[in-house]
């Protein structure tokens, strides 16, 4: 968020260490394999859009990325540290550098918006006025500042999702994980949320993994960019896609696609063709 205010440019992708590395990761529940032999990378400033049908394990993959779930086999590296081998106590510290937006927002219903957004800052024992100022700044980013004193139960689904994004970005994380940020929302609200995700990508250049099963959201992210001057997203010129956005696709527990927007569109895989049609 602050980086965006300074107007910094994203680092060239090839030159930097990957932020996330999945190396032959598998996980199952109650002896049923859910994800098998998953390998991919997320580099600094890169947005990976994770597609796949409902129930394929997208959220599971995301939860493994911040250590909420541990793989049965394989290794996961985040910021160069092998989180699959880390103790839970050490993971709490690492998660401070990862922002997570949960499927339904997962706001703390007994706390107001200010306390929800400033939760992590309060845990770090920052003075009250600083917590309020930074929570207000994050809420301004998602255009929710007027709701600072309201409780989650008083907000609509879209508003809750925006507050969840504010909570995820308040500490300026280096990596953001979005778990179906538009799931269950109407098309207009979905566009607003996608615009915010894009704003975070293009203004702050934060690395991210966006889980979605809505192909239209994925293509909006790939074919638009956020214009800071007009404060709106704009369609990229024809045949041009965002260079920092690429795709992953899961099918039947396996990673069936890892590539750019163009490669996805021109894929000859019958499942992918059917999925994106």
């Amino acid at each position, binding site marked *: 968020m602050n980086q965006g205010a300074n107007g910094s440019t994203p680092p060239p992708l090839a030159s930097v260490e990957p932020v996330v590395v999945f190396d032959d990761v598998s996980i199952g529940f109650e002896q049923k394999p859910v994800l098998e032999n998953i390998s991919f990378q997320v580099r600094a400033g890169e947005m990976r859009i994770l597609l796949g049908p409902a129930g394929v394990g997208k959220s599971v993959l995301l939860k493994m990325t911040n250590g909420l779930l541990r793989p049965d086999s394989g290794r996961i590296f985040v910021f160069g540290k092998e989180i699959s081998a880390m103790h839970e106590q050490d993971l709490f510290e690492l998660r401070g550098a990862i922002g*997570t937006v949960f499927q*339904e927002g997962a706001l703390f219903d007994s706390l107001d918006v200010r306390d929800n957004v400033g939760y992590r800052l309060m845990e770090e024992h920052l003075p009250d006025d600083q917590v309020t100022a930074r929570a207000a700044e994050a809420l301004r980013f998602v255009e929710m500042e007027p709701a600072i004193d309201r409780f989650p139960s008083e907000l609509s689904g879209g508003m809750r999702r925006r507050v969840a994004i504010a909570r995820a970005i308040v500490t300026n994380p280096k990596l953001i994980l979005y778990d179906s940020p538009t799931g269950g929302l109407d098309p207009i609200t979905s566009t607003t949320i996608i615009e915010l995700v894009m704003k975070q990508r293009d203004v702050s250049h934060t690395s991210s993994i966006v889980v979605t099963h809505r192909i239209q959201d994925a293509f909006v992210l790939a074919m638009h960019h956020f214009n800071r001057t007009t404060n709106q997203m704009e369609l990229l010129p024809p045949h041009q896609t965002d260079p920092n956005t690429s795709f992953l696709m899961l099918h039947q527990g396996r990673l069936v696609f890892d590539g750019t927007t163009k490669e996805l569109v021109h894929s000859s895989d019958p499942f992918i063709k059917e999925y994106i049609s």
Partner: protein
Amino acid sequence: MALDTIDSAAKRGVLAVQEYVLLSSRAVSDIFRRPFYRDDIYMQADIIGVGSLPIVILTGFFLGGVLALQSASTLQQFGAAAFTGQLVSFSMIKEIGPVVTALMVSGRNASGMASELGSMMVTEQIDAMRALGTDPLKKLVMPRIVATVVMLFFLVIISDAVGIAGGGFVSVFLLGQDASQYFHTCYQSLEYPDILQGLVKPIFFGFIIATIGCFYGMKTRGGTQGVGRSTTQAVVWSSILIITTDFMISRFMIGIFGR
């Protein structure tokens, strides 16, 4: 087929015990690790301790009263109605005070903890807390254990006192006994092991209420129905464990002190 069912049920049982022991031991070890959520402990102490005060006073008073009523009529048959106070104080301090107070607090708070944490679990708030870098065991479970153990200890003392007062009220105003005689027999026959037994029990019971409530809350799955199931199981299992533990502590203390 039947063997498979027994096998999987046994495995589930062992797994549940293992998870319970892990959760309890980690939460207890969190007491000695920073950050120390002092404000959360005070808040839980207020909810659990102060919030349970009315029901503990009411049940304590009437239990003491009914004890006096029932024991006086039996003792009268042997010409020993003068020992009503002793019987009430013995029963209240060693058994009924700790057990009934624990059961009341369990009904009110183990269910509350299970439903609160269960709701947080099914709405991913616990995951969100972990994702925000906070250990839910430290933030949510540890304060509840500390608050329940400390507050139940004092609630039991209050319940004992109110119960003896209730017994006194019934003995004096309904049975026409002498107040001085009642209260004298109440404390004169008491010895330190009796008091110790009554004060050791709430420590164990408080631990059981908080850990069982939190355990079922933290393992809630399956939406609102799951929350309901966890709440019921928390009350049922904490009640069973309170009574079982009461027997074991009583046996142990009687074994040591001979009374």
